[in-house]
């Protein structure tokens, strides 16, 4: 069991990079008004969409891999369908997230562990779907940075922060407040999708994904 868990973490960490946990404290906000709430969702696509991203996955020691990521989303249903492909077009992984459940259609070794499927779909969710429900707090920091914070029942928190001028970030914190995911989004945006994305993961495995939008569609 321990061995299997270790293997899962290794597989999830096929993209491993030692970036370590990112200790970033939450700042104090001047509270926003209800009129500011829509801005909390502005960086996520609002309607049904599909996308093709070029992905460079960077692992421990700087080893990297080049992939294509294809995703279709339906925000109103909180559903996602994601594929990972080699540059030749071979499907490595194909799964759907619907009503909180993951259905893997296809997965080849070493992308065939439940931990990998869970980790990948959690990352895709973080990138493209706003957290469920209303933010617990929202407002602005002293320098004008807009911040929205959601908290889930398990104590995990998601923070969207930034501005149109300086770009946007999404932070995911665990129940101890440590940042486990940090996403940078840089425009221009097409159909609500950022042209450039970078995701840094630090727990349970460390890796970095650099993503460039190739093909958006409404």
């Amino acid at each position, binding site marked *: 069991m321990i061995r299997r868990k270790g293997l899962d973490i290794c597989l999830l960490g096929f993209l491993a990079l030692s970036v370590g946990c990112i200790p970033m404290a939450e700042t104090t906000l001047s509270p926003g008004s209800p009129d500011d709430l829509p801005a909390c969702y502005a960086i996520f696509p609002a309607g049904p969409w599909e996308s093709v991203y070029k992905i*460079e*996955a960077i692992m421990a020691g700087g*080893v990297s*891999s080049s992939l*294509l990521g294809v995703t279709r989303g339906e925000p109103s249903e909180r559903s996602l369908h994601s594929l990972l492909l*080699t*540059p*030749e*077009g071979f499907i490595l992984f194909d799964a759907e997230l619907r009503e909180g459940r993951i259905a893997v259609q296809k997965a080849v070794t070493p992308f065939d562990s439940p931990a990998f499927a869970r980790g990948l779909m959690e990352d895709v969710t973080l990138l493209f779907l706003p957290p469920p429900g209303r933010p617990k707090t929202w407002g602005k920091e002293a320098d004008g940075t807009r911040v929205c914070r959601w908290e889930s029942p398990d104590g995990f928190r998601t923070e969207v922060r930034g501005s149109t001028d300086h770009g946007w970030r999404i932070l995911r914190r665990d129940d101890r407040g440590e940042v486990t995911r940090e996403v940078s989004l840089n425009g221009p945006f097409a159909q609500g999708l950022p042209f450039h994305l970078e995701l840094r993961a630090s727990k349970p495995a460390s890796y970095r994904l650099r993503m460039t939008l190739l*093909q958006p569609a409404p």
Partner: protein
Amino acid sequence: MERSRMKRFLFLSVPIVTGFLSAAAGPPQDWASLREASRNIRSVKGEFLQRRYLQILKEPLLSEGRFFFSTSGSLRWEYLRPLRSVMLQKGDSLQLYHFSEGVWKPEMTQAVESRRMVLAEISQWFQGRFDESKAFTHLYSPGPPARVILTPKEGINRFIHRIEIVLSARPGVIDRVEIEEPGGSRTSIEFRNMEINSSLPSEIFEKP
């Protein structure tokens, strides 16, 4: 493991091999004539446009690339867009790279052995031994346009439903290859600017 290897094998090998096949011979009357025609081939190079149709996408994924092959046992299969990547085979050596931030980087991949197997099969097929395939049955349709239709046998048909090679009116050249998969996804590859027996410097197969 074997299943995934076979899938990779099929995906990679079919377009490459059919490209060689069409370049090597005129409209194939039978597999023996292909074998005969291949005897005079020393090298093949060409370009391709690949369209990958996926059920979740309204528009296909487009990729462009080129390949170089030498009967000495070397192959360069390269995608130029949208992901720049290259597979280099020379003898028993196989190297994979992708281009990022202005430099070629070694590719971390689990598919090295699968690709090695693909290339070994290609070398065998390039010698005109298509009729020895245990994976496909084949049918020649004179057209026009002339076509070669490959039908997978039991086992392989879980991954490939049908392959159709559409030959050009110009002898020895194909217009495209269509690979149909169960479930509706498919791949279309158009070959162009094919050249036979060009002089190919050895470093094409050694350096990305």
